């Protein structure tokens, strides 16, 4: 859809990383997400087959972003609203995401993860300091969450390192042997911004959902008309 979205929509980065690398992924060295396990490949193929038949029967068929539920983890840049507020107080770090208005409240006191029975969209994060690096270890993701096919089995380790007064290096490592054939990592820079986070009143502004469902009904009507026309021709 190169022709549909222009600068009215996008919020591009303004700097190029020093190494000029072309992938966020730094391990494996080829910069590619490792192969998915056969089980995950099958799951995704099934999901795609279902999607083709039921693209928008109801809101539940649409993805988590469109439903204003979760952008999920790890942090991966999209075309706009890559805005985060990191707030530190004694014993906790709060990472607030503009997209989908998600806030992670991360304890730093070394307590263990919640029981595996507790499952959350953003998982259950625990933080600690390794020198000047904030390390956040997150498990307990909901089975309905979806990061490139990974969900409840995802073990995510994120590292936030100050690299200057206005910059942080963000790294994450993904481990989920049920989804990926080997672990992988990525890193990217974050820069300070001058504007505040804008409120994300997702449902209030989500005219898109009625548009998506309306679009699907229009497609169905068109298909039905085509079928009817074809039948009357064959008679």
């Amino acid at each position, binding site marked *: 859809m190169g022709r549909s979205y222009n600068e*009215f*929509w996008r919020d591009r980065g303004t700097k190029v990383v020093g190494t000029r690398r072309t992938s966020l992924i730094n391990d494996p060295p080829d910069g590619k997400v490792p192969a998915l396990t056969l089980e995950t490949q099958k799951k995704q193929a099934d999901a795609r087959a279902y999607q083709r038949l039921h693209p928008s029967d109801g809101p539940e068929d649409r993805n988590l972003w469109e439903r204003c539920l979760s952008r999920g983890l790890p942090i991966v840049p999209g075309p706009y609203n890559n805005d*985060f507020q990191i707030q530190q107080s004694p014993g906790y770090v709060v990472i607030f995401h503009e997209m989908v208005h998600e806030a992670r409240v991360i304890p730093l006191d070394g307590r263990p993860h919640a029981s595996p029975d507790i499952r959350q969209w953003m998982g259950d994060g625990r933080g600690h300091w390794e020198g000047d690096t904030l390390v956040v270890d997150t498990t307990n993701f909901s089975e309905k969450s979806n990061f*490139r096919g990974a969900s409840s089995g995802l073990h995510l380790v994120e590292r936030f390192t100050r690299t200057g007064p206005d910059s942080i290096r963000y790294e994450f490592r993904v481990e989920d042997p049920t989804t990926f054939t080997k672990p992988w990592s990525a890193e990217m820079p974050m820069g300070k911004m001058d504007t505040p986070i*804008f409120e994300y009143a997702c449902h209030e*502004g989500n005219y898109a959902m009625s548009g998506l469902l309306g679009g699907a009904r229009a497609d169905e009507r068109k298909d039905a008309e085509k079928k009817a026309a074809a039948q009357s021709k064959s008679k």
Partner: protein
Amino acid sequence: MRKNFVMMLGLAGLLAAVAPVWAHHAFAAEFDAQKPVKLKGTVAKVEFINPHSWIHMDVKEADGKVTRWMVEGGSPNALFRRGVTKDALPQGTEISVDGYQAKDGSNRANGRDITFADGRKLFVGGSNPDEQPNAK
């Protein structure tokens, strides 16, 4: 100790390699690439709401009838960063919009280029050479 750090993720040159789900919603599911529209009218209201801004405009049809259209655009923070505030599009401003109509036939469109009466464009085209203004 209390630190408050507002960060923006840098994506320069890295976006193409990643981001499988890249927009809040899918263009093709909501809008019809076969239905380009060129709307000429006046701004009735602008909603700066996440995840997308919406420009409501009154479009005068050939028969003189006025129809209200809704045009979807970028996220508020993305627009603010480019200096586009509510003052950029006050009520009554004459604009024309190139976009694509909603698939369900309602008076909604995915907005692309917004042009003022004096020919100034509010948004320049993307750097993608594919991104030409609509043919119609």
